[in-house]
């Protein structure tokens, strides 16, 4: 670099060619930037626009469908939300003056390139989003998708991802309370690494990202800024991830950022102390697009004007250019707006925690974000044009013709086990298959105990933590998505994901309150993928309306594909619920009471399209997904919460992948207690054991409560069937007229698979 590309320089050299195409901008987008500025952008401005207008930051392909959220959020749903879509994370009121914030984000592409750091920094990013709302982060969950379990590359990716999540999350002192691990060949070259974080605060402590108050100071604090992750947003999260030297003639560090969890842990505690002292006016984390994003979002959410002296930013590399500093994605950094009289107090708190803090600018009464470099202006832009007025694409979407072929290829003619011996073998095959086997190999690498408030965690249906030690109030969360169902029918499949997460929260005894999502799809340039996406958003928005719980935020990840082959569409749905007293949570394993009956809630139909059985035994995907009945799900949740409140339910477990067989095996193994299951003589045993009909939960009910509970179900119109008894003195699971399994045999089958694959 010889000449600094200042605004003045740009004005005097209007014809200088800039590498807008290499930075991922389209020709018309570049023309619009020139139009906004009335001149060519400087290279620093181009860096800002290109990252902020990338798919990852601007949602340019997806936001055209966001009207579905607006249309389907009723006033009643809005009333529970303290902050919604557009903020760093959604916030819901959970009662007693507590507000809870929660969000999921993807870190898919970095985690394929560099599994450990990709996954680690994914945790770091979502945790900073939660801090930026003014909340203390309290727990994380990790929805993960990998290629075939026995594929050699899965052995590279999965252990790295799991170690990265553990290595970072454990060091932050956040319990990991749930998530998913799903294998499917469609994720082979494109694993999904989503991370969810939950935080809590007193309602009055909610901090929104805005920079208002002329003269207020802009403080950058946390780690130094380096060359890592430059171009990460526009290159990695968009069309290709081949890496980019971007023509400056200098070798960049790898585009995947490197995390330092210790710095983040200290940053968390530092922020909590700053909040307690009440010296933060506005705050924003630095994630994708780094300072470009933080300064333009803070400024545009405030009064607009901000001045930043970029040469004051503490660096960890020498010779960095203004464009590099603006687009660096160095981790563990935050940006706060502070009143001038509080700057000294702010610096004192940062010093206590050995956090580097620097005043880099101030809020002005102008309209523009002005960034200088040693006195010369290198950026002078209306911040909203960077942060919120990016391009909006109306991409074509169309139901692919193959969809009919897929739906007509039903599983009806697949050979089924019919003799007791065949059923017995199928049960063992299923419980040891990669998607149904115990996740302990993964979850034991995560700390679920830290902070001492974890009441439910894996292998339970939902995670649950206590948020108030005085009142025992707590929150629960679950994430779910069966991509095969979404593939068969994106609208219904997404509602099934919502229904399952909702049900899982209620299965622990909590009342569902709000929804977040991480919509992982293939290329938006493929009209078939865009159709899946449109259907998924519509299905989720309308489903939430029916359930009466709002979508508070979410994340979109496109371009999840290998070559032309997209992943199974995977709209991961996260549901958050509240429980007024965690001591009444419902455990997953049975055997907690002396005598318990097993009661199956809901109806079992022959629904095997997209089922785990068709996948494991026949490698088949086709037909129709199970039906979804959200009114029924709502009723089921109410019954479960009532059962928890009145002590009528002593254990509960949702029926999903693998059906009743999987659920009852898990309840027995987790509870270390035997049982006798009696199937309905009027229904095919195979269908009863393996169908994946939605809206079902198997509950254990103390004998003394059985009549009261079943009368409640009947009175409310919830179908139920007595399906067996828990046998505390037995160490085997008997499925009458089918097979009797010693629990040890089941445990060996269930627990052996992942260690055999990944140890």
């Amino acid at each position: 670099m010889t000449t600094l590309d200042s605004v003045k320089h740009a004005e005097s050299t209007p014809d200088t060619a800039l590498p807008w195409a290499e930075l991922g901008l389209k020709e018309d987008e570049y023309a619009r930037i020139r139009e906004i500025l009335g001149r060519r952008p400087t290279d620093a401005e181009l860096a800002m626009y290109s990252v902020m207008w990338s798919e990852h930051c601007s949602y340019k392909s997806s936001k055209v469908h966001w009207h579905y959220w607006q249309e389907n959020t009723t006033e009643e749903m809005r009333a529970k939300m303290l902050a919604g879509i557009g903020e760093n994370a959604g916030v819901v009121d959970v009662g007693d003056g507590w507000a809870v914030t929660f969000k999921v984000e993807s870190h898919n592409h970095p985690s394929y390139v560099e599994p450990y750091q990709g996954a680690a920094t994914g945790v770091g990013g979502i945790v900073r989003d939660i801090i930026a709302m003014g909340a203390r982060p309290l727990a994380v969950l990790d929805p993960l998708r990998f290629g075939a379990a026995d594929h050699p590359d899965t052995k590279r990716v999965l252990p790295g991802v799991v170690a990265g999540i553990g290595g970072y999350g454990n060091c932050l002192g956040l319990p990991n309370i749930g998530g998913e691990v799903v294998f499917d060949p469609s994720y082979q070259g494109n694993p999904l690494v989503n991370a969810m974080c939950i935080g809590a605060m007193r309602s009055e402590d909610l901090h929104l990202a805005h920079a208002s108050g002329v003269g207020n100071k802009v403080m950058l604090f946390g780690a130094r800024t380096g060359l890592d992750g430059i171009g990460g947003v526009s290159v990695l999260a968009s069309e290709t991830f081949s890496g980019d030297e971007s023509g400056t003639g200098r070798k960049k560090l790898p585009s995947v950022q490197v995390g330092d969890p210790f710095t983040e842990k200290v940053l968390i505690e530092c922020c909590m102390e700053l909040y307690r002292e009440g010296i933060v006016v506005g705050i924003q984390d630095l994630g994708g697009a780094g300072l470009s994003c933080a300064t333009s979002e803070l400024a545009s959410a405030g009064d607009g004007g901000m001045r930043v002296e970029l040469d004051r930013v503490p660096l960890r590399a020498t010779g960095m250019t203004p464009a590099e500093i603006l687009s660096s994605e160095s981790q563990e950094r935050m940006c706060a707006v502070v009143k001038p009289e509080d700057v000294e107090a702010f610096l004192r708190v940062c010093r206590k925690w050995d956090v580097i803090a620097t005043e880099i600018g101030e809020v002005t009464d102008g309209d523009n974000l002005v960034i200088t470099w040693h006195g010369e202006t290198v950026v002078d832009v209306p911040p909203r044009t960077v942060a919120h007025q990016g391009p909006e694409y109306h991409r074509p979407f169309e139901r692919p013709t193959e969809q009919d072929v897929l739906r007509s290829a039903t599983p009806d003619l697949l050979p089924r086990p019919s003799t007791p011996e065949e059923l017995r073998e199928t049960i063992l095959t299923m419980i040891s298959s990669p998607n149904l086997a115990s996740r302990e190999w993964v979850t034991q690498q995560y700390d679920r105990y830290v902070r001492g408030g974890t009441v439910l965690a894996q292998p339970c249906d939902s995670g649950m933590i206590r948020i108030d030690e005085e009142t025992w109030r707590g929150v629960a969360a679950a994430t779910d998505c069966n991509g095969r169902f979404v593939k068969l029918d994106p609208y219904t499949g997404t509602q099934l994901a919502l229904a399952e997460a909702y049900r899982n929260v209620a299965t622990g005894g909590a009342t569902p309150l709000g929804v977040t999502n991480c919509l992982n799809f293939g290329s938006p340039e493929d009209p078939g993928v865009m159709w899946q996406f449109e259907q998924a958003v519509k299905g989720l928005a309308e489903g939430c309306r029916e359930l009466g719980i709002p979508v508070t935020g979410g994340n979109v990840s496109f371009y999840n594909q290998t070559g032309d082959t997209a992943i199974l569409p995977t709209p991961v749905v996260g549901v958050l619920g509240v429980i007024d007293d965690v001591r009444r949570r419902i455990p997953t394993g049975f055997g907690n009471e002396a005598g318990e009956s097993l009661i199956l809630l809901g109806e079992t139909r022959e629904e095997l399209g997209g089922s785990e059985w068709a996948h494991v035994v026949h490698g088949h995907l086709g037909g129709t997904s199970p039906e979804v009945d959200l009114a029924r799900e709502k009723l089921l949740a109410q019954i479960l919460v009532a059962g928890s409140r009145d002590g009528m339910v002593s254990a509960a477990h949702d029926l999903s992948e693998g059906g009743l067989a999987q659920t009852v095996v898990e309840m027995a193994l987790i509870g270390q207690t035997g049982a006798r299951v009696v199937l309905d003589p009027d229904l095919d045993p195979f269908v009863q054991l393996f169908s994946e009909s939605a809206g079902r939960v198997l509950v254990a009910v103390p004998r003394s409560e059985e009549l009261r509970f079943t009368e409640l179900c009947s009175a409310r119109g919830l179908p139920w069937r007595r399906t067996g008894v828990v046998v505390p003195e037995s160490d085997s699971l008997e499925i009458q007229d089918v097979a009797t399994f010693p629990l040890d045999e089941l445990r060996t089958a269930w627990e052996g698979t992942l260690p055999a694959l990944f140890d």
Partner: protein
Amino acid sequence: MTARIGVITFPGTLDDIDAARAVKYADIEAVSLWHGDHDLKGVDAVVVPGGFSYGDYLRAGAIARFAPVMAKVVDAARGGMPVLGICNGFQILCEAGLLPGALVRNHKLHFVCRDQWLRVENTSTAWTTRYEPGAEILVPVKNGEGAYMADEATLDALEGDGRVVFRYVGGNPNGSRRDIAGISSRDGRIVGLMPHPEHAIDALTGPSDDGLGMFLSALDALQGAAA
């Protein structure tokens, strides 16, 4: 007189609120101590809790032993003050020379978090008098560098002196020599262990309440001293 136990927070400490909660569950006042403190605020005993002090990028506990507060802890411990090191705290006590041996990376190289059975081998230390000899307790273990190592002579001496306080039973989670989960100083006042008794004080949030006995033992030791 109310007993007071200090709980140290280093930057990167994670289980300090858990340790303080466990202390309170035993009806003892918990006093927070900061790594930069030059005094122990008059506490009667100290818990060095788990976490990743200063990030533990060099070697677990290697930096923390140089913290100003640790100099005071070492002095007080040499004078007989009860000190409990849990997980990272155990690593720090070893690094500080208060306990022999070292903790190294788990044998399978993974972080391991699981519910673990321990046998209480010595019920005469300041932290274990509430247990029956040979009692088996269920507490979480969670660490990446939890394999206890020492040379054979040291291990023999520890065994011979009854200084092996806790031993893993039902499977060794990390490759510790002789299944050792926790040890004590010669006078039984200082105990270090990798598993987390502070996470087992209530069967709702932990696998059991078996860990509470350690804090109640300390209460007895402190009240006995006062009486």
